[in-house]
């Protein structure tokens, strides 16, 4: 039994992954406060650390074709342990999604619509994501092309417009910060944009062909990482030392664009790009969450869950943190700890156990 009927090609997976990673463009600000001008190398190191783990996800998806994470957990760890692990994953999806929704709300309330009630922004955004999820993964996969290209174009064009304000000596000295801060930075980066791709274990079951998945996953990650890298380099080169003090360095960077006093106030560009990219990311998380839940409960379709989950998400997002300061503190210090095993330990472990037990040997356990 498969909950999702839609099928996506592996090329669409590439764009989904790229858009997913790009959606975290604003979230690298969590890292900037810690790693300052060395953020760019932290992103590269984070990619290098996470890439093997992500390939283990792909290997897992290839080993269990047509099965999602919850089914894989059941098969590998048995009914009981598998369920416990799946609940842990569902908790992770639930929280991460609400944090991301809150991010959008904070972005709007700080920069774009300061007087609008926070909860209203959350409801509108979540409703849009919920609508996208009801349309199924195929629709998301199709729009992802457009979103990734828009995101890339925005980021590249703003970087070009800021080229005259860039000072590349801001990257010096190369190695200055104590290693512990770099390590924390790598930890954050390897989890927040890259490691969260564990949600794709809920989506890879929809692949129509499993050939070239490794290659396409890699290119998707690469596009996402390059986008993050361009943003990090742009912000550091333009803002220099001040990049650590702004609430959102990317926004501040764009506000500095001033071409002949005519081409100014380009904030809306980053507003648009940010909204659509984080929309893609939230929709993917939302999709993973409802599919995992309905698989856990043995439902035939995930549609009845969409609306209640959307409501729960809005409430969590509105109440979980009292301020962006709280948000940043928890994410930097606690969020990356509880999600680490889900990203770095369990998928490779599942792969290992499946290899040892010679899974999947039969159709047993699939009826859950």
């Amino acid at each position, binding site marked *: 039994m498969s909950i999702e009927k839609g099928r996506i090609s592996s090329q669409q997976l590439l764009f989904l992954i790229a858009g997913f990673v790009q959606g975290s463009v604003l979230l690298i600000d969590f890292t900037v406060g810690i790693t300052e001008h060395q953020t760019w190398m932290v992103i590269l190191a984070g990619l290098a650390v996470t890439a093997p783990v992500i390939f283990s996800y792909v290997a897992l998806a290839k080993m269990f074709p047509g099965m999602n994470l919850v089914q894989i957990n059941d098969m590998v760890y048995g009914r009981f342990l598998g369920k416990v692990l799946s609940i842990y994953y569902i908790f992770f999806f639930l929280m991460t999604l609400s944090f991301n929704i809150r991010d959008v709300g904070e972005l709007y309330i*700080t*920069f774009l*619509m*300061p*007087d*609008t*009630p926070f909860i209203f922004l959350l409801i509108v955004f979540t409703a849009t994501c919920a609508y996208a999820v009801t349309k199924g993964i195929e629709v998301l996969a199709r729009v992802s092309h457009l979103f990734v290209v828009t995101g890339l174009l925005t980021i590249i064009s703003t970087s070009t417009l800021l080229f005259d304000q860039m000072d590349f*000596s801001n990257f*010096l*000295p190369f*190695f*200055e910060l104590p290693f512990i801060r770099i390590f924390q930075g790598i930890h954050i980066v390897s989890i927040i944009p890259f490691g969260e791709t564990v949600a794709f274990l809920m989506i890879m079951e929809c692949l129509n062909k499993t050939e070239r998945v490794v290659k396409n996953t890699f290119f998707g990650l690469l596009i996402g990482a390059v986008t993050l890298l361009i943003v990090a380099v742009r912000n550091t080169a333009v*803002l*220099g*030392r*001040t990049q650590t*003090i702004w609430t959102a360095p990317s926004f*501040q960077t764009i*506000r*500095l664009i*001033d071409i002949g006093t005519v081409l*100014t106030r380009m904030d809306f560009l980053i507003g648009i790009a940010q909204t659509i990219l984080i929309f893609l990311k939230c929709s993917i998380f939302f999709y993973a969450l409802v599919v995992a839940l309905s698989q856990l409960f043995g439902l035939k379709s995930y549609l009845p869950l969409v609306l209640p989950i959307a409501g729960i998400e809005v409430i969590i997002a509105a109440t979980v943190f009292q301020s962006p300061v709280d948000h940043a503190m928890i994410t930097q210090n606690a969020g990356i700890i509880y999600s680490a095993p889900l990203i770095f330990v369990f998928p490779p472990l599942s792969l290992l156990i499946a290899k040892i037990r010679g899974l999947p040997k039969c159709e047993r356990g699939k009826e859950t």
Partner: protein
Amino acid sequence: MEKKMNFSIMKFFLCFFLLLTLSGCISAREINDLEIVIGMGVDKDENPGKILLTAQLVKEDTAGGASGDGSGGGDSKAYWNVSSSGKSIFDAVRQITHKTGNRLFISHNQAVIFGNDIAAEGLQEYIDYFLRAHEMRPTALILVAEEKASDILNIKPEAEEFPAFNIAKLVNSYVFTSHFYKVNMKDFASCLMGATTAQLAPLVSIIQDEDGKDIYVSGMAVFKNGKMVGKLHHDEVRGLLWVLGKVKSGVIIVSSPDEQGKAVLEIVKAKSKVTPEIEDGNIVMHIKIKEESSLSEQTTTENLADNKAFEKIQEASAEVIRQEIMAAFDISKEFNADIFGFSEMLHKKYSKEWKTIKDNWDVIYPTIELDIDIETKIIKTDLLKKPVMPSEEEN
């Protein structure tokens, strides 16, 4: 069939409902309700511990119309300077609403001018609002008034309608003389965040002559840890800009080889490269400057457009540049303020030694040696190749 009909009617009404609720007037501020701020001045109030904030607002009704006919509103101003005191900047910004009736709209602010007294006390505590407020642009210019900032905003310029726009125009004209340079909020904050670098902001003053008062921007105020410690004269600023590589244009005057008059050069291009070096404990800054200029004016009858004369003028102009740099360096030693950003250059190159340098920077700075190497070139003589003088053939 009927069900489908009902559903589409429902959809239709839903669309109308959304049209009403989602039109987004929640924080609508129409243009006639906006108090558009184009310039701000910060002074100390007579009451101790309070500041006086002056905001220059655009008067909507006169801004477009009054400029056309001189008969009706010859004396009417298109702007309104409104001020209010407060315990902090934001307090004062909100106090102003007692006079304006509307919140200030700061998004179009061109410049923030700090009064002399407040600059001497320190800008650290006042700059926060200008960076934090969400309507404020990090590109807003920052200036320091010789006297009171509110007086500067009160001088109506001759050619422009708004004093604040006039000041912004004057600041942008630094490219012609290199007698100061443009500093915006972000640049100032960036310098303020460096532990050892000094901060600079252009100085604006009022010049009184027979016809009236004019605004004059020249020279720069030097800050150390946000407190103003002194002023740089315009020649010293150019000395600083030579080192920073920010000289865009300007005039160099040297005496002509025959000592009869002057050769006046216009700077066309200038580049600089600074390499710090630590030689057995001594810090040496190797400054390499490449300058190109054109012969724009000469006041002697001797033909300067010849290679021998060029060589002498080039040497003389290199000497002028060297003196300007040394003047800037000497005065910065007097203030003990690192206006050149030498400390950052050292930080970037010698990150290991930096920790000890940083703690003793105030002692180290005056001991820094400069090694200046200047290469000047005259690349053109503009429209004349000989001076205006009687032909020599008769002699």
